[in-house]
């Protein structure tokens, strides 16, 4: 993925805001956008790595100490 997620977080926030049904004061928006940009920057660090199917988790409950195969 060549597009940086952080470049699009203002649009993402604007698109998500009506879906969340949270009464957002306009004064809050810069901080919300800043935190979303921080999250996007972080996602850029891992989200496009080439994952093997063995990295899939069987459930959203993470259990340490076992391999992916043992988890499944």
């Amino acid at each position, binding site marked *: 993925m060549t597009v940086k997620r952080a470049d699009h977080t203002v649009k993402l*926030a604007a698109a998500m805001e009506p879906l*969340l049904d949270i*009464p957002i004061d306009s004064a809050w928006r810069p901080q919300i956008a800043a*935190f979303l940009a921080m*999250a996007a920057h972080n996602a850029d660090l891992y*989200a496009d790595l080439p994952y093997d199917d063995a*990295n899939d*988790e069987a459930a959203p*409950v993470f259990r*340490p100490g076992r391999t992916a195969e043992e988890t499944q």
Partner: protein
Amino acid sequence: MKATSASAREIAAAIAYGETTAAATLEATLDAIATRNGELGAFTDVVAHRARTRAAAIDAARAAGRRLPPLAGVPFAVKNLFDITGVTTRAGSKINRANPPASLDATAIVRLEAAGAILVGACNMDEYAYGFTGENAHDGPSRNPADLTRMTGGSSGGPAAAVAANLVPVAIGSDTNGSIRVPASLCGLYGLKPTYGRLSRAGAFPFVASLDTIGPLARTTADLAAVYDALQGHDPRDPVCNPPDDAPLLPLVSEGIGDVRMALADDYFLAGATDEARTALESLAADLKITQRVTLPEAHRARAAAFVLTAAEGGTLHLPRLQEGAVDFDPDTRDRLIAGAMIPAAWVVQAQRFRRWFHNEVMRIFDSVDVIFALATPITAPKLGQKTFTFDGAEIPVRPHLGLYTQPITFIGLPVVTVPLKRAPGDLPLGIQIIAAPWNELAALKVAHDIEARGLSAVVDRTT
């Protein structure tokens, strides 16, 4: 023995041998809280009546010749996200105060009281555990006993202040990304973050279900082990609490470290720390003759993925409260949670996939070492209200970033004991992490105990 500076085990022994009573110990504790809590901001709730009832029962049991349980008469506190029967669980928030009082105690409280300990109250924390500072917009900050103008660290800031100021010998906190280890480091305490799934979280207000753990803060490693032993065991009330064993560790921690293989984490875990912090860690490593260094691969990406998981799970958890009462949140928490609720699912699922990859890579390191040393925080306690600190040449926000050395570890559920480094007079506290493989809390505790026994760590007595 002075009740307000003795360790939990010293208190229990003094009561068992009739050198003092549970009631006298409790009254000294309540007096200390009444005297010092105003300046410390450690406690938000004190359950004096309940505590006095339990102390009387313990003294009556001893008078009747009954054998006392191992922590009989030991006062303890919990972070205010733990349910206490008859008390509303505020979890650091204003919103939760409209909830009815809890109808059941959290499992941690039930188990510690079964071991004879006496709950004295609930402690301050970052709102909904989403912060590393110990500051709270509703209750005011918890203040660092080493310097009242400085942060305790968070989010278990109140429990850390209570133990570091000798108000109680032990307290129970929670750790999602570093919330036991960061305040343990900044306040100069021992802290134990167990393996994910080891200790029951039932009755503790959640934050990030796939990362949340609970554990003790204490002034000695033996107290950590004693409390940990009391907390151990499967609990059907917590779906992830299914440990492979629950053997007591206290009898084992002083056996010596034998051939425990120790290594120092380099790369990510040294970059960015202050020279003072690096020097302190490397000095300890030299004292322990640790020569091996290990690199946890892509730790910066692990921290990034933990950051996104936390934001997304936390934002989703609190979405109904944000919809109904966003104005009642601490603004710093609110804006982060709203942003978290906006995160696309793909970022979350990829973070989970990366977690498995990172876990498997780190497990390979544990083929050749038993414990890994790393700093717990890159700096000592910031000033209250301080918004940024310098890390690797850049100014970064304090609240989300004080735990950047702890987050990659919680991400894969490893157990960690935090140890306060021995400091020069006047220096602020600073802690290190002793990280072990899943379910191997014993190795981390043994090494921590050895460091304590050699005089290489220190908890400063702050009794006044």
